[in-house]
């Protein structure tokens, strides 16, 4: 079933002091979706969020909300609320008054305010904290107050700007699960900005990978990880071995001096391509004739696995394995056709052409 489009960005261009920050962004946010904008700092993800929130206006292009153009609608008139990077709680107000802020502005009767605030604080597990000063709260608690404050006016969309950035690792993991659960419970659309790829893969329905003000790929976490569209996505999300190769015909690729069967098709005959193999998909075996053989250069303990660098066919291969071979020994490497992922080769890390950004199947059911 096709979901309703809630926010649409059409050809958004934005410059700061002559520096392009967003170059023609096209993005649809669907109802009830958990969408993450992922990219390195300066990629334009926060600017995209600010444009949806109304804190920045695009130089050209249109923003639609529920089918209505909202380019010139000020933030306080949008059905969108934001959780800011450093929470931005009002230090002069206590927890109760911070959460009640939006309702007070609307002159809501006191009884309804206290009911709604209690409801919100329960939602974020902060019941009993009403009278506390926000300055005494821990980072995680401040985070929850910020979420309760943003959710109290029942927004259609909640924007979150790196909300977990200031928390320690353990708390961050807890909050990831909680945020996801909260989104599913409330049914509110979340647009989440982060530079943490793991966070994006854990929580999102849809991940939007951005770099240099351009959307590189839109897809489910699985799509993004297993079928990156270009070198940037392949290297930004997890680690990968990227090898130059040639696609002889459908299901047959040549790289590292050999021909390999693969599951990819739809390339031009003899098209130069990039081949992606994830480090955890390569198995180390004893060197045999049909394996790729190389010398172990380096082994690093990483906790869950060892990172092994093997030099073979004059390239360094990164391999993740729970067993460590000896440095200097000759080993063989194997992988299955499913582990090979073929990408079109674009000149210098240029992004994929825009029409290929959304997965073809998905755009096919769009009317």
């Amino acid at each position, binding site marked *: 079933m096709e979901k309703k489009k809630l926010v649409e960005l059409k050809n958004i261009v934005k410059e700061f002091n002559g520096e392009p920050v967003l170059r023609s962004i096209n993005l649809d946010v669907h109802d009830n979706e958990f969408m993450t904008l992922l990219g390195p700092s300066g990629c334009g993800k926060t600017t995209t969020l600010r444009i949806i*929130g109304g*804190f920045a206006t695009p130089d050209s292009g249109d923003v639609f909300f529920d089918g209505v153009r909202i380019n010139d609608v*000020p*933030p*306080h008139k949008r059905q*969108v*609320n*934001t959780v*800011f*990077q*450093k929470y*931005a*709680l*009002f*230090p*002069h107000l206590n927890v109760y008054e911070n959460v009640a*802020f*939006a309702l007070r*502005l*609307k002159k809501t009767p006191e009884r309804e305010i206290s009911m709604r605030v209690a409801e919100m604080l329960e939602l974020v597990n902060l019941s009993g904290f009403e009278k506390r*000063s926000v*300055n*005494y709260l821990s980072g995680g608690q401040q985070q929850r107050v910020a979420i309760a*404050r*943003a959710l109290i*006016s029942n927004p259609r969309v909640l924007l979150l700007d790196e909300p977990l950035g200031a928390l320690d690792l353990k708390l961050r993991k807890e909050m990831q699960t909680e945020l996801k659960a909260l989104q599913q419970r409330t049914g509110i659309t979340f647009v989440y900005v982060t530079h943490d790829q793991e966070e994006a893969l854990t929580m999102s329905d849809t991940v939007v990978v951005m770099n240099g003000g351009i959307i590189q790929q839109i897809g489910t976490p699985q799509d993004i990880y297993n079928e990156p569209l270009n070198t940037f996505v392949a290297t930004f999300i997890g680690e990968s071995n990227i090898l130059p190769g040639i696609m002889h015909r459908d299901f047959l690729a040549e790289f590292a001096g050999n021909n390999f069967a693969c599951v990819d098709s739809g390339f031009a005959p003899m098209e130069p391509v990039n081949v992606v193999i994830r480090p955890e998909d390569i198995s180390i075996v004893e060197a045999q004739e049909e394996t790729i053989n190389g010398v172990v250069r380096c082994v690093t303990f990483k906790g869950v696995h060892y990172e092994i660098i093997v030099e073979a066919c004059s390239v360094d291969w990164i391999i993740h394995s729970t067993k460590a071979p000896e440095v200097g020994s000759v080993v063989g490497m194997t992988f299955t056709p499913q582990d090979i992922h073929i990408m079109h080769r674009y000149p210098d890390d240029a992004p994929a052409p825009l029409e290929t950004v959304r997965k073809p199947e998905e755009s096919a059911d769009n009317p």
Partner: protein
Amino acid sequence: MKKMTFSKIYTSIIFLFLYIPIGVLIVNSFNASKSRTVWTGFTLDWYSKLFHNETIMTSLLNTLVVALIASVVATILGTAAAIGIYNMNSVARKFIMNITLIPNVNPEIVTGVSLMLLFVFLKMEFGFTTLILSHITFCVPYVILNVMPKLRQMNRNLCEAAMDLGCNQLQVFRKVIVPEIMPGILSGFLMSLTYSIDDFVISYFTYGASSQTLSITIFSMTRRKVSPEVNALSAIIFVVVLAILLIMNIVDIKKHEKEARR
């Protein structure tokens, strides 16, 4: 050990030098004799005479009225200016902050004379208006200097958060910015009040017959002979200024405690 005693003695001497004159003045204000050298007994006569001296009482009232009006106006103007300067780009901000500081380092006598020349040039009659205008002039920079750091400390996202939750521009100012910078506004106001009450040089050049302030009255009274009434008056002023300074410091300490908690 030796060093410790030396530094203690040194510090005591410095403080003696600072406070003996004021001490002598206060003691003399209770001295029954008109002479400043002989103690003939304790009296509150000078205080009672002081409160019955109409010239002094009028000028006290003048001082308070001028100080209050000038500091209120200066606080409003200074706060507005600080917010405006804060929202400028960094080059303009630095420039404006520097020219804001110049009147503070300018010798008072220069400020006084130039204000007098300005009023003469504008053909304004010397009186309350000229006096209050000049007090506002030298108070505004102090307010800006007190409000500015508070604005800098404020999380810039606060204003956006307020807009996000439904505030229009005016509500952002009233409900978020003002409460946040209140300690700065308050200390700016108190500082203006003290400087205005304290001022002699600038007032001397800008007062009119109807608007003589305390400092000017005292000055003209002492031109002939220091009357013990002046001692009593000065003692009172000292105590009042001390009280204001104490309040300012307490406000400051509370402010720091609040920040330390964050």
